[in-house]
């Protein structure tokens, strides 16, 4: 039967294609997630001053240090380069780890990592901002896409944090802080380590469910030492002012707990 022999021929060819494709493309094949990995999310919860008040946009707050009245319309920032320290002291690095945490978009406040090898982890490391390499590289995608409007067009580099809003204490009625800077004395990049068992338990990654790391973020910390927006209501470039605010903000981020 002709059709049968044709069929046989075809299946041989198909096999050959499969063989060729697999062998010739070896370097492109990424391992499929197997039961030896699990998922971890890092949740950034936003609070005002203490745990009693949730932080949201379009809500009036009084600043505890400056007494300024602040009503945020924008609050977003980059967290990048997540790493987890295994019990044996080695680090697991999350690939392409760039997140734009935007208070306006709840799903963006949950940083999800998949393909994390199962096991026990003792520390999380994260970076506020975007590493210097990506600031000077070509056009990027994803969280780093320039369409996210977090890139300084005239002074190349990512805006690490945008806090904007309205305030009666501002001479213009509004405020706009675009903080960033990745090099030299004005760098606002900072990397923080969280030791889980300092306040909680070690992180256990399993293939059966997602483990969670909860972080608390206090946007009021931006003005911990910066002074009233009556004096400065706008920062749109790297510099010492941006550095003070960014450092106070990052130092104010707290680790809450691990939920295995």
């Amino acid at each position, binding site marked *: 039967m002709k059709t049968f022999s044709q069929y046989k021929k075809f299946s041989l*060819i198909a096999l*050959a294609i499969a063989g*060729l494709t697999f062998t*010739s493309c070896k370097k492109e094949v990424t391992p499929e997630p197997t039961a030896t990995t699990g998922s971890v999310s890092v949740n950034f919860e936003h609070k005002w001053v203490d745990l009693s008040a949730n932080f949201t946009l379009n809500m009036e707050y009084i600043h505890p240090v400056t007494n300024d009245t602040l009503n945020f319309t924008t609050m977003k920032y980059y967290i990048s380069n997540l790493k987890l320290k295994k019990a044996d002291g080695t680090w697991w690095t999350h690939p392409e780890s760039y997140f734009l945490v935007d208070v306006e978009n709840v799903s963006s406040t949950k940083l999800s990592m998949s393909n994390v090898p199962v096991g026990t982890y003792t520390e999380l490391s994260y970076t506020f901002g975007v590493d210097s390499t990506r600031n000077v590289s*070509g056009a*990027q995608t994803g969280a780093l896409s320039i*369409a996210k409007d977090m890139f300084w067009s*005239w*002074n*190349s580099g990512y805006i690490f944090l945008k806090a904007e809003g309205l305030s009666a204490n501002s001479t213009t009625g509004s405020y706009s802080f675009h903080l960033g800077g990745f090099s030299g004395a004005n760098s606002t990049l900072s990397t923080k380590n969280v030791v889980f068992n300092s306040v909680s338990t070690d992180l256990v990654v399993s293939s059966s469910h997602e483990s969670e790391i909860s972080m608390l973020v206090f946007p009021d910390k931006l003005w911990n030492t910066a002074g009233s927006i009556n004096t400065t209501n706008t920062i749109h470039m790297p510099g010492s002012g941006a550095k003070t605010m960014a450092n106070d903000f990052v130092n104010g981020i707290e680790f809450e707990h691990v939920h295995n």
Partner: protein
Amino acid sequence: MVFSLISTPIQTFQFKKLFSGMRFFCSMILVFVLFSCKKDNEIVPVDDWGFKKPSYFPEPHYTFENNAQTKLRFSLGRDLFYDSILSLDNSISCASCHAQTHGFSDHNVAFSAGVNGTLGVRNSPALSNLAWYPTFMWDGGIVNIETFSVGPITNPLEMHESILNVVGKLNANSAYRSKFKLAYDVDSITDQKMLQALAQYMAMLISDDSKYDKFKKGTYTFTADENAGYFLFQAKCASCHTEPLFTDFTYRNNGIDATFTDLGRGMITQNAADNGKFKVPSLRNVQLTYPYMHDGRYFTLSQVLDHYATGIQSSSTLDPSLASGIPLTADEKLKIIAFLRTLTDYTFMANPDLSEPIH
């Protein structure tokens, strides 16, 4: 450089030879396997077209990493460069302020008009050999040719558009969607691909066929004046306007002001020691790119030379090498100008491959 846009890699496959049934099928498999494994950076040049470093140029800064050079991408970038779709009200394109006939600078105006006719605050520089630029703008604020175009597109004094809107407009345009599909194999246009396409065109703005270049290649002999001017230039100007790009890409205060309304490099570094410093501009095609300096204050090359000879303004950031000016006789000035004219590259300014595409 002259190159043609006709042949594409696919033409190198000899389809005529793949005649019947099974043999055709098997060949297609082979083609498929070859293509499926080809990584972005492995596109094989099939003819003479492409980025070529002139032998006497240094290594380029931009290497098309993650944006392998192809003709389709280049011509897509050219379409974008000449298309006012990049501006808020579809009124101006990159070429409005960077005209090929003027060495890709503006049409001999000090300040360029953006959308609604608003004037900018700096002179539109001539563009050439951008693949060799480590930084862009008079103050060097932009550090990558791919992210460069975000500057003019979003500047309220220039195209005054948002990247998100531009990407939206491009996606709403079926011609662009199919061009991006062909060039970058994307179903929906992203800001990254748009910026990379523009970079493909910008990197090909290679000026290497002026009299000076022909002299370097041994196909032109300078006249006596040009030759004398060349020696004077090497002695008095080349420490900053370094051959063969005619800039060393440093930031200097060349003494045009004693106090600064435009802080220049200082605005980027926030360091007062950089106030009044500007990127040393390339002098390629300088004969046609007047007016000169970051604010277009001089209209002629002799005014520029008068400045260097007798007009240096002192300030704390003045380049030390200019502290007592550059002494020049009237005759020396003429000879230097004769040399500067050898930097005019008519091949570049008439190269049809860089010109506005005709659709």
